[in-house]
């Protein structure tokens, strides 16, 4: 794993991306402390990927959503005219613009924080997080800010994104469909069905960024059900695969340049689940959903958050 890039070597966009990533970690840690629990390690591993996608990689228009999210509108359907889809926070739908699909909805808080840090959502919007009647749900669904597809049942969002991408190709649109996935989703059989399909049908406007953090609910993936070597498996399935340091915005941003016509792109972003929050590094055990063991531990995280904010990026 590469060391963090020295600030003097960064270009201005990289510094901006780092600021966004740092802000994501701070906000998710803050919410986790407030709620005495949360999907914190996911934010640590994905912050740089999400920050790079939103600030450098994807072509999105300005948010169409209200700065403060509206309450839960009821389920989607033709009989619910009040319904809205969370994708409005990712800008308008247009042939030349990109689409963003968050697959593992457990990353919702990290995504909400990303929307705040990129000016698409008011910071106060996070106050609605996991509140009854709110659309800012813990495991986001289609009405949640930034979320187009309910991805809480793993492996389904990739296939739906593939359908969206195939539809866009049928219409001759030039925008890409970016999908954020977690490595655990590659244990699902459906994921491989979809990879087979997008390779065969040459759905090359599909670009998948995978947070390879090596963790799942039961623990380290190599102890639960080993996935590696992932790159070789994906290449055998016909993917164009780029393997990068998932905490380095420069290589993340550059990854799509390695695309090849006719092949879907998968960027394997190798990450750490404690990145940027030192207290997590020593915690060990279950990192899927962080609950503080006692008030003393919670206070330690409060202190670290204060230090993180004081330090800045």
């Amino acid at each position: 794993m590469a060391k963090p890039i020295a600030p003097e070597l960064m270009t201005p966009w990289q510094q901006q991306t780092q600021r966004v990533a740092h802000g994501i970690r701070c906000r998710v840690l803050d919410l986790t402390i407030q709620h005495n629990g949360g999907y914190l390690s996911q934010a640590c591993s994905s912050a740089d990927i999400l920050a790079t996608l939103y600030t450098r990689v994807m072509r999105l228009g300005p948010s169409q959503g209200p700065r403060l999210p509206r309450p839960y509108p009821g389920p989607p359907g033709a009989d619910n005219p009040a319904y809205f889809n969370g994708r409005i926070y990712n800008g308008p739908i247009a042939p030349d613009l990109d689409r963003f699909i968050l697959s593992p909805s457990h990353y919702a808080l990290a995504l909400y924080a990303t929307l705040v840090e990129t000016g698409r959502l008011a910071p106060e919007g996070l106050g609605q997080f996991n509140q009854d009647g709110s659309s800012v749900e813990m495991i986001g669904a289609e009405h949640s800010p930034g979320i187009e597809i309910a991805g809480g049942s793993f492996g389904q969002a990739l296939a739906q994104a593939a359908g969206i991408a195939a539809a866009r190709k049928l219409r001759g649109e030039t925008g890409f469909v970016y999908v954020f996935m977690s490595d655990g989703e590659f244990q699902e059989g459906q994921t491989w069905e979809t990879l087979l399909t997008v390779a065969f049908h040459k759905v090359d406007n599909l670009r998948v960024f995978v947070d390879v953090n090596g963790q799942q609910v039961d623990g380290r993936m190599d102890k639960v059900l080993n996935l590696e070597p992932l790159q070789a498996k994906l290449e055998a399935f016909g993917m164009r695969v780029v393997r990068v340091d998932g905490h380095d915005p420069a290589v993340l941003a550059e990854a799509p340049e390695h695309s090849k016509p006719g092949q879907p792109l998968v960027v394997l972003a190798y990450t750490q689940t404690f990145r940027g929050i030192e207290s997590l590094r020593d915690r060990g055990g279950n990192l899927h959903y962080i609950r503080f063991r006692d008030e003393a531990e919670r206070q330690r995280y409060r202190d670290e958050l204060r230090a993180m904010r004081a330090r800045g990026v």
Partner: protein
Amino acid sequence: MEILTQVHATNLVRWAKDKPEVLVLSGDLTAPTEAHLFRDAYPERFFSMGLTEQNMMSFAAGLAREGFVPLVHTFGVFMYRRALDQIAISIAYPSLRVRMFGFLPGVTTPGGVTHQAIDDVAVLRGLPNLTILECVDATEIESVLDAIHPLPGPVYIRMMRGESVRLFPADAPLRVGQARVLGPEGDITLLTGGVCTEEALKARTILEARGVSLRHLHVSTLKPFDDPCVLEAVLAARRGVITMENHTIVGGLGSATAELIATHGAARSLCRLGIRDQFLHGASKPYLMREYGLDARALIQQVETMLHTDLAVRDDELSAIALGPSPATAVA
């Protein structure tokens, strides 16, 4: 009675001609689900998905999100059993215009337990937003595409293939939510679906020769189950209600009718003919219908029980029954 072959295959090509938004997806069962003529006519609108049913359902959802209308073709079991979570979360929850053509309902295949969709209605009826239909004859197969096209949400169709009789007049199309009144009067109300309707028509020919008439409705819309015509027929049943379905009696037409009766406090006795909570095995359709009590004889026996009478129907009478031209049917 008119018998036609590959009604869906030819109808689909004709119907989809001027509908560029219509796509067909097939799970490696293209000719077996009569999608092959569409594939040959409009290759750019056909997606070969192989044996990836979970992927196929979610992929179809993605296409539907973009305004296309995917018609998914495979055997029913491979949709609702293999890919139930995908049908629920990718398709039903967002209420997308995906049309799922589930072939081989119940006894219509000799393929045995792995191929016979005996519980699809039971499994899928609990999914919000989903419309569930059953097609049985050439008229319904020809008209179902038009009938469902305006629906804004997802539809699952128990679909027939191969040789189809024409039970209903060609100019009396299937209408979503409307049962067909096949027998307007009688103290017993009979609700039938799918291939059981043809058996019921045979049985009624024999019963009517003995002066027993049934109030008979053919039900093609299993969800929503809110046809006022069905309720009216149930309320009019002085001697009880019989349901007859090519499906387990748990969760299908019989159960929906029980809910209707109870909800309206109708206090009618109900007999559910159908597969009696058991798996079938691989055998011919006539054998399975006889063996599992889905045929004309089973219905006659039930009517005899409800009327406390012996109608002395002989086997040779039953086998000699050939349905005449389409009976006078009224679409309510």
